[in-house]
């Protein structure tokens, strides 16, 4: 059985858990905790360790999707979760400048370390005040080779398109590193 791992990261409340929930065939194993601080006005619960989703491709191949905690105080998990990932999805809230600017920190942390293909999922594109992908690309200050895809993590088709593009990119660039995970 080959397990292929994808990492979903991004700022607090940018849609990581809903991204994984929408595509996973199993109920997402989510280590969420009720918020007690001022961030509660943004959302009720936050991921403290990881989110885990699974997609069975065939009897010999399974895709694991790991979501990192969004709040930096739980960032001790980032290193652990990133080991062996084939690709990275960074979610940002397209309606929130702060979320996009914070996205830079996640890119700065993961990209130099992992050197794996990456897609930016510009979430909440269904909302009227969402910034466009090219605006988000500029705000993130990323190389144009990193694609910013419009996304609505509450819609399965939208999440599917992001993952499809991520794997097409992995196929185009070739697998970086030796992450074969077979047993």
């Amino acid at each position, binding site marked *: 059985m080959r397990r292929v791992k994808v990492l979903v990261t991004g700022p607090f409340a940018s849609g990581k858990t809903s991204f994984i929930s929408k595509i996973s065939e199993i109920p997402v194993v989510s280590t969420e905790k009720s918020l007690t601080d001022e961030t509660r006005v943004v959302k009720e619960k936050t991921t403290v360790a990881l989110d885990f989703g699974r997609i069975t491709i065939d009897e010999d191949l399974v895709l694991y999707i790991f979501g990192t905690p969004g709040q930096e105080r739980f960032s001790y998990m980032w290193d652990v979760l990133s080991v062996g990932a084939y690709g990275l999805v960074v979610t940002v809230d397209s309606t929130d400048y702060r979320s996009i600017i914070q996205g830079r920190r996640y890119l700065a942390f993961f990209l130099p370390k992992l050197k794996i293909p990456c897609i930016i999922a510009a979430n909440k594109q269904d909302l009227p005040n969402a910034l466009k992908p090219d605006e988000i690309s*500029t705000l993130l200050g990323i190389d144009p080779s990193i694609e910013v895809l419009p996304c609505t993590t509450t819609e399965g088709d939208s999440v599917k398109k992001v993952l499809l593009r991520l794997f097409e990119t992995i*196929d185009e660039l*070739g697998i970086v590193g030796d992450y074969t995970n077979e047993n």
Partner: protein
Amino acid sequence: MELAGNIKDFSIIEISQFVWISKRTGRLRLFLESAIGKFEGSIYFVDGNITSVMAHDKKGKDAYFLITEADSGSFRFISDDTTPETNIVTSMNQLLLEASGRTKLFETLKREIPSTNIVYSLAPDFATFDLVFDSNQWAVIAMIDGEKTLAEISKFLGMPEFDIIRIFYSLLQVGVIKRVAVKQVKKPEPSEPKKAVGFIQKIIDYFKGL
């Protein structure tokens, strides 16, 4: 009413005039591109008057001119955004007049230098010229090698497109440089797909079939 769009449809000067006339307070957020590459900018208005401008690494009037001379990009007005420290003290009339004047001059210069992809070299008898150049002109002259485009020199020196074109124009007028070629901007060629990885293709097929 939301004020957002592309600067190809409305120039920054036109938008500034609109905000001025309508006496609005807020921030005009810009995502622009010019010879120096992609950059962001913000123009802050208080009751229609521009009080603060920031763009790329510039502030004040320089930033406003950099914005008004961008080739392409988009804008969005955010009402009642926090206004930072004032760095524009010029009246709106004067600022718009100066910006319009520069824009007109820019158009004239661009007739002579229509593209920033042009490559220039120094005239063979450059050393014999008895001319006095300022520091910016010297900085540009030092970069002219018959290979770098105007855009590449602009980016390297961090000099706005307007300034660099004006300097090239002045050097052309006195005959110290000559046009060599127009470099075609190559799009990066897609890298050759490395080996086809069966299980990655399986995942791609899976998502395509969903």
